[in-house]
């Protein structure tokens, strides 16, 4: 039981933080968002730092590091408000591809590691909302032995900048069956694939994919467990990102309270506001605790992992909403302007709560999985 970071992990954190300081100031971030959220260039810079190789096995040109390192990177990307498809492209996709045939791994992972290829999962179907198992996209094996996919995927991260997509599609079963979902790889230039990119509220970019008899390579036939794991990897990643976001937004708010004067004194002299910032700190530390929990539970077996990750998402979702809203309120008018850094942290925190299932959704997941005992070592 040890929550210290190793020296290597601390160096990793410093490296990311230094890059943010140097290369990702607010005006760059703001300009990228205004321009529609394209972030491939940022992804490339992260690749140059070696970060896209982080969790890819050494055998495939990666660094073979683990969930804790991913958490460290995500916290710093959050603190720096970096909108890059890192969770999708550098953490979730390698997790999904780890279950692929060796040749497919060899074909893609090294290029993903060096940043020359960006592969992102396309897990969301609009009508499914947060049900990962509600897959209506169909896959059929043609007489030529080629799988072809038809259907539609939404909110695919950096979709119109990616080189390929990891697409779950239904081979058998009814709409919600967990069995019968297979995972495919579809290059962006595949026939019958239409990609429509659009900006997101948080300043990033996503795309809608329309597949019509689009040829695809099979990654994994019974993909449900792996999809669930990859989404949990995503949850842990954005939990860590949220901690970074909240940490920095809280710091901004503390600075503001200590600077802004009303009625001749700083806002920090008002007890009601002092207690509010104490409540913000509470939510931040609870979320940080559950971010650690999420990351350290990723290695557990199915249901124990699922329960833990949903518990974490419930806490992070509540914290993100509270910290975001209260820090806006504590800033007054300046906080809700587009030119102020803080409002963009709030917007990203809003998006985080709705990514991979909102708070009510994950509360349902926790509720469905409750056992007699509970706790970290239950």
């Amino acid at each position: 039981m040890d929550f210290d970071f190793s020296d290597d992990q601390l160096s990793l954190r410093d490296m990311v933080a230094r890059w943010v300081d140097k290369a990702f100031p607010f005006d760059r971030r703001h300009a990228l968002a205004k321009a529609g959220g394209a972030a491939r260039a940022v992804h490339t810079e992260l690749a140059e730092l070696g970060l896209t190789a982080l969790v890819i096995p050494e055998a495939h040109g990666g660094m073979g590091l683990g969930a804790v390192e991913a958490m460290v990177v995500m916290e710093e990307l959050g603190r720096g408000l970096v909108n890059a498809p890192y969770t999708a492209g550098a953490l979730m996709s390698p997790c999904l591809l780890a279950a692929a045939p060796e040749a497919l791994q060899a074909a893609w992972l090294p290029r993903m590691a060096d940043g020359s290829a960006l592969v992102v999962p396309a897990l969301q179907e609009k009508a499914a909302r947060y049900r990962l198992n509600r897959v209506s996209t169909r896959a059929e094996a043609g007489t030529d032995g080629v799988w072809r996919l038809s259907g539609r995927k939404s909110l695919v991260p950096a979709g119109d900048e990616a080189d390929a997509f990891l697409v779950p599609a239904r081979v058998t079963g009814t709409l919600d069956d967990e069995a019968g979902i297979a995972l495919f790889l579809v290059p962006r230039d595949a026939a019958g694939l239409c990609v429509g990119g659009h900006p997101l509220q948080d300043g990033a970019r996503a795309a809608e994919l329309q597949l019509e008899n689009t040829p695809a390579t099979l990654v994994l036939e019974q993909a449900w467990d792996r999809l669930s794991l990859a989404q949990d990897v995503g949850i842990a990643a954005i939990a860590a990102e949220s901690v970074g976001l909240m940490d920095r937004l809280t710091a901004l708010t503390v600075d503001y309270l200590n600077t802004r004067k009303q009625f001749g004194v700083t806002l920090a002299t008002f007890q009601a506001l002092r207690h509010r910032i104490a409540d913000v700190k509470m939510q931040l530390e609870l979320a940080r605790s559950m971010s650690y929990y999420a990351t350290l539970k990723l290695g557990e077996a199915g249901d124990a992992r699922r329960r833990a990750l949903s518990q974490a998402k419930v806490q992070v979702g509540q914290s993100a909403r509270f910290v975001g809203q209260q820090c806006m309120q504590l800033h007054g008018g300046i906080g809700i302007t587009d030119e102020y850094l803080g409002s963009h942290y709030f917007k990203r925190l809003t998006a985080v709560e709705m990514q991979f299932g909102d708070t009510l959704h994950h509360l349902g997941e926790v509720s469905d999985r409750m056992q007699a005992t509970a706790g970290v070592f239950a």
Partner: protein
Amino acid sequence: MDLNFTPEELAFRAEVRDWVATHLPADIRQKVRQAQRLHKDDHQRWARLLGAKGWLGYAWPRAFGGPGWSAVQKHLFEEECALADAPRIVPFGPVMVAPVIMAFGTPEQHRRFLPGIASGDVWWSQGYSEPGSGSDLASVKTRAERVGDHYVVNGQKTWTTLGQYGDWIFCLVRTDTQCKPQAGISFLLIDMKSPGVTVRPILLLDGEHEVNEVFFDNVRVPAENLIGEENKGWTYAKYLLAHERTNIADVNRAKRELERLKRIAQAEGVYDDVRLRDQIALLEVDIVALEMMVLRVLSAEKSGKQSLDVAGLLKIRGSEIQQRYTELMMLAGGPCTQAFLFEAMEAGWQGDQALGGLFPGGAEHCAPLTSHYFNVRKTTIYGGSNEVQRNIVAQTLLG
């Protein structure tokens, strides 16, 4: 004690309902119903229609050409407008500055300014807040120096809502720097076309241009534009703020938006999800309770028997409810509300047909939901932040 409106009140309501149904332009109604962007022309068309009917200054006394409605009638008018998806009346002219002009202006000022407000022809803006003064309104720094028969104004106002459309602006200005903050303030009406007035947009976090900074650089303002006495502006400002409180809870709109929330939840297939539905049910209770509180205020005004000072509570609760329904709409809309298309705020936007049929927002109703959630973060900050309101409520209890 009676929860029912009188037959006269019901007849009045029916009259308003009929008139609004007949006169509110369909395109404007559709924009409001879809929560899309309203432009100057939309606001002004509706204002002029109301003006022609004599209802733009719906709270004005008969002596000034208003309809002389009772508190209940005003409420019913507001409710009918909200339920019919009419735009909010832009308040700066008819609701805010007009009562000040009526109460403290000269007959000449009445003749000069009120007709344009009543007709909806002249767009007024508000010049209260400054960069250094948020809740601390009395710390006005914008300077007005008397030079002959003019004031020369220098300084800056901010958070001027829809100021980009403004013809005139009413301002708190400092005319005496040697006394207590409240004592040296004057209330000045300024033609925004005067040389030296610059309006600069402030984008809010939803990306919309709703508020502005207004700069004054040696702006010459005729002395006859001063309301009341020099250095007595704080009195008039407080009078205005008291009038601003009318409809502060905006419960009529909340009722309308609750209906919309239910429509969205149904369309998205989550109306029967007990978790979300319970949140909607809780909000429904909140809104009924708020409406009852508003009705209690109206009843007290009507009878004059017992005063009921709950303005602070109405502001707090009304703004919290606004924030809550937009939050629930966003959550009901689901992950696709996180798509952001600036065009989606416009009428005529084709929803699902955008992006070659690939916009993820699906039904049009989802597109603006997150923007609206962002937009209404302001409601707990402006008009006296909810923290200031709590101070006021506590003051009435504790002294």
